[in-house]
């Protein structure tokens, strides 16, 4: 009896410990998590930062890091090895979980952390060739002595932090998901850069466009999906002389477009990845010095995408934002120059139909012969389950991403096609950043850009000698016009990329007559540019508004630039709303609707946070586009024409054939559509936000949120009060927007201002997790502290860390 009791008590003890020490489903290990010795309590971090002295083996000399009141590190090293070593250490200290998680996401390894439910995602990442591309890029990195030094030192630094990390000090996400950090590798740096490439240049419309072409024919493509924008306000001002002799273009083979099988898809792509940047010459500024501005629009998350930093070594003194997981500064300024990027959206991703000999897919027909495919066996490890083995088939063009048995998650990926992507090639972006960080003048800037290949970016430039410039920069395949607008026949090599546009023939301009340069992802050049980069770029509105304002502005200072970054004028509404009002049949409306119509009529088109007009117009415009296009293009295999085409359709009352709703017997006119959509909008807003229309405030209906990467609500911020929106200069949409805003005055000593929606620490238990969010939402910026020596007194400095060898 007593023996039994004793055994029972021991069994219960063991069982209890076992259960409390492991993750069960989504419930974290409660014993570990709630223990104040190891659990979440330890992640409560003090607001005050203490100074430290550390001994770090592996350093060549002493390194001093000074921390300012926003927790921005200013790293002073005696050589570049130590500089990037400590950058790695500091990134890991504040952002370890995020940087590691993103490399898992890039490489398709999320199943190792969260189990079965991520397998489809992981398989797609692997078949997309993310690891393949990162491995190629790593080879290029390690073959280049500067990049190799930086990436190896960075890796050492991250690992010194990880090795010394006690379990109680693990970032909270490790504790909730119950796993441990693994050693960092140079491959992870490459994966992180590929993840950005995937985000910015990992999308294509080829599949949708091919379906549209097959269904509605070439005239529909010409009128609704044109290859030149209707309102062309290009990045390089029209009339700029190119000054080079272009290479001959390849000739399009006949019948390059292929039949497409019908494939289901999931959800439309996110069209919000855009950015603004511009620079104004001293001629237009109050101080006489050039001013450079940049705000990359990306997914808004916590921990923040960016990490502010100053990096100082004997040949480098650069301040700006870095990407945790990568050495160097990505957007910023040094003592001589400032630069910022926006995405080009060049077409560097094409799909080739593959004719296999038989179902074994061992051979495919290419260039009049049967060739052997390469099969790579890939193992997806799954937490709490057995691994999944996947075979990825490669042809000369690239990997087959979607197959009938394994349909991809992303809707634009056609089944059975090989993917040709510049992201798979060995590229040298890290070298470009290392050189940019040290560039002293325009020619060194251009030299750095030669290394930057993918994802192509519009690099805006300004220097202390009052030069301004912009380069539409990347490695661009030499294509015939519209090559890759549609899916391509993979049996004929004539459909493949035939060469490259020489770097010095990338569209660029220095010191243009108008006194400013700008880009907002719009069309890079007018029709005189001899090469084809893509058929569609971002809708003209942001670029148009920026150019309109910069044209008329003079005596510019940093505050007027800050206001321009926060500009919320709705250009679409300005153009379209008068036409809508003309066509609206108002006599029969109830008085409440009359009030809204009155408000819209007197609206100044500013999408400020409290605007009710913007809420109404935004939905109304979406309803109009749905009524015009959805009956023809709402199919899962297609997409709508660009907003610009919708604007043209409404303003000029063209495309009447498409306006008619084919699902009804009547022939709808534009006026019918406008009136129907008004009812629908009214109805929908009433249902969603109540009948008191004064409550339909834009910031509430837009509901901007900054989500934690794991979508954990308690680590996220919802209902951030901001104005602006998609296709406006202040492009703050629901979860996309200005992920970093920067203004640099290129005085003799450049002065920078900047902010991002979050904070330097990745720890939700730290004051510095989100301390800049409110200022960001209000459109404010903070001075970017620049130190010239490790001992320089500065009111903003609160602590320092000394690293001894």
């Amino acid at each position, binding site marked *: 009896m*007593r*023996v039994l*009791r*004793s055994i029972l*008590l*021991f069994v*219960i*003890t063991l069982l*209890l*410990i076992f259960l*409390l*020490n492991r993750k069960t489903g989504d419930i974290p290990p*409660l*014993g*570990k998590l*709630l*223990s*104040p*010795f*190891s*659990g*979440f*309590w*330890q*992640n*409560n*971090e*003090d*607001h005050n930062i203490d100074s430290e002295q550390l001994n770090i083996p592996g350093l060549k000399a002493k390194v001093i890091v000074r921390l300012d009141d926003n927790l921005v590190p200013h790293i002073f090293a005696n050589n570049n090895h130590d500089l990037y070593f400590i950058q790695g250490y500091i990134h890991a200290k504040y952002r370890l979980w995020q940087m590691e998680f993103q490399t898992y996401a890039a490489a398709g390894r999320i199943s190792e952390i969260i189990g079965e439910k991520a397998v489809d995602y992981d398989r797609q990442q692997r078949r997309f060739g993310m690891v393949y591309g990162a491995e190629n890029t790593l080879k290029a990195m390690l073959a280049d002595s500067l990049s190799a030094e930086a990436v190896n030192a960075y890796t050492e630094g991250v690992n010194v932090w990880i090795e010394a990390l006690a379990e109680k000090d693990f970032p*909270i996400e490790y504790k*909730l998901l119950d796993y441990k950090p693994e050693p960092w590798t140079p491959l992870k740096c490459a994966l992180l850069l590929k993840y950005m490439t995937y985000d910015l240049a990992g999308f294509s419309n080829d599949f949708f466009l091919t379906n549209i072409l097959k269904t509605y024919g070439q005239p529909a493509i010409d009128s609704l999906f044109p290859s030149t924008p209707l309102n062309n306000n290009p990045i390089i001002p029209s009339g700029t002389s190119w000054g080079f002799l272009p290479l001959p273009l390849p000739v399009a083979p006949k019948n390059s477009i292929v039949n497409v099988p019908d494939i289901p898809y999931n959800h439309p792509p996110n069209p919000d990845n855009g950015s603004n940047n511009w620079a104004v010459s001293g001629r237009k500024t109050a101080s006489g010095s050039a001013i450079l501005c940049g705000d990359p629009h990306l997914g808004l998350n916590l921990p923040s995408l960016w990490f502010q930093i100053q990096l100082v070594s004997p040949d480098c003194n650069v301040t700006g934002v870095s990407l945790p997981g990568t050495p160097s500064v990505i957007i910023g300024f040094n003592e001589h120059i400032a630069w910022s990027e926006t995405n080009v959206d060049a077409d560097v991703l094409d799909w080739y139909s593959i004719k296999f000999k038989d179902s074994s897919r061992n051979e495919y027909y290419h260039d009049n012969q049967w060739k052997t495919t390469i099969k790579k066996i890939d193992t997806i490890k799954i937490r709490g389950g057995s691994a999944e083995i996947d075979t990825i088939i490669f042809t000369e063009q690239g990997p087959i991403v979607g197959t009938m048995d394994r349909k991809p998650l992303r809707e634009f990926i056609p089944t059975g096609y090989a993917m040709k992507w510049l992201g798979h090639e060995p590229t040298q972006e890290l070298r470009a950043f290392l050189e940019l960080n040290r560039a002293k003048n325009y020619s060194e800037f251009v030299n750095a850009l030669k290394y930057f290949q993918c994802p192509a970016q519009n690099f805006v430039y300004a220097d202390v000698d009052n030069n301004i410039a912009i380069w539409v920069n990347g490695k661009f395949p030499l294509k015939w016009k519209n090559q890759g607008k549609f899916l391509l026949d993979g049996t004929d090599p004539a459909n493949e990329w035939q060469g490259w546009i020489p770097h010095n023939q990338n569209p660029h301009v220095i010191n243009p007559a108008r006194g400013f340069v700008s880009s907002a992802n719009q069309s890079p050049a007018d029709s005189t540019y001899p090469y084809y980069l893509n058929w569609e770029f971002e809708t003209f509105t942001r670029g148009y508004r920026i150019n309109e304002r910069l044209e008329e502005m003079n005596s510019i200072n940093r505050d007027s630039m800050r206001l321009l970054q926060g500009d919320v004028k709705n250009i679409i509404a300005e153009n379209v709303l008068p036409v809508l009002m003309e066509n609206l049949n108002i006599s029969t409306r109830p008085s409440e609707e009359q009030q809204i119509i009155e408000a819209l009529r007197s609206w100044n088109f500013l999408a400020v946070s409290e605007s009710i007009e913007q809420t109404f117009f935004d939905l109304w415009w979406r309803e109009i586009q749905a009524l015009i296009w959805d009956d023809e293009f709402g199919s899962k295999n297609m997409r709508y024409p660009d907003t610009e085409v919708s604007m043209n359709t409404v303003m000029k009352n063209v495309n009447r054939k498409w306006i008619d709703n084919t699902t009804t017997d009547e022939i709808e006119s534009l006026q019918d559509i406008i009136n129907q959509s008004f009812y629908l909008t009214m109805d929908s807003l009433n249902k969603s936000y109540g009948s008191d229309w004064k409550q339909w405030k834009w910031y509430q209906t837009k509901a901007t949120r900054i989500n934690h990467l794991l979508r*954990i*609500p*308690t*680590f996220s911020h919802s209902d951030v009060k901001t104005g602006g929106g998609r296709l406006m200069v202040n492009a703050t949409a629901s979860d996309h927007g200005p992920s970093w805003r920067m203004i640099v005055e290129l005085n003799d000593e450049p002065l920078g201002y900047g902010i991002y929606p979050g904070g330097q620490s990745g*720890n*939700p*238990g*730290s*004051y510095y997790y989100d301390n800049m969010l409110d200022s960001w939402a209000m459109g404010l910026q903070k001075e970017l502290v620049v130190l010239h020596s490790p001992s320089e007194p500065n009111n903003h400095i609160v602590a320092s860390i000394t690293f001894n060898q």
Partner: protein
Amino acid sequence: MILLLFILLAICTFIWQLFLPWWSICLVTIPLAFIFGRNFRHVVLSAIFSCGIVWFILALCLNEVNGSLMTSRIAVLFSAPSNLWLFIGCFVIAGLTGGISAAAGFSLRRLYGSNKPKVAFKN
């Protein structure tokens, strides 16, 4: 010295957990209950309160570091009505683990049929 076991448990589990995982509680409670236990009630109550209070007080101290920034977020994560529930949860987990393991330790002594503490103190 009825509190002796309580005090010893509190000190030892505290030190132990600085170096070992949270479940090392039982590595302390089992032998101490075996040596110093008087009866099940004494052993279980001493262990529940010593282990529970050590966790509770340390949690309280760590919570003060920044005005319960992380504590509040975790309370929301668990849909707890207030932060207090996390402190209670903390007490319960440590108390439960300590109490049951201590009872197990003491039950071993009962196998030998002895009711008296291995080390005797006069009250």
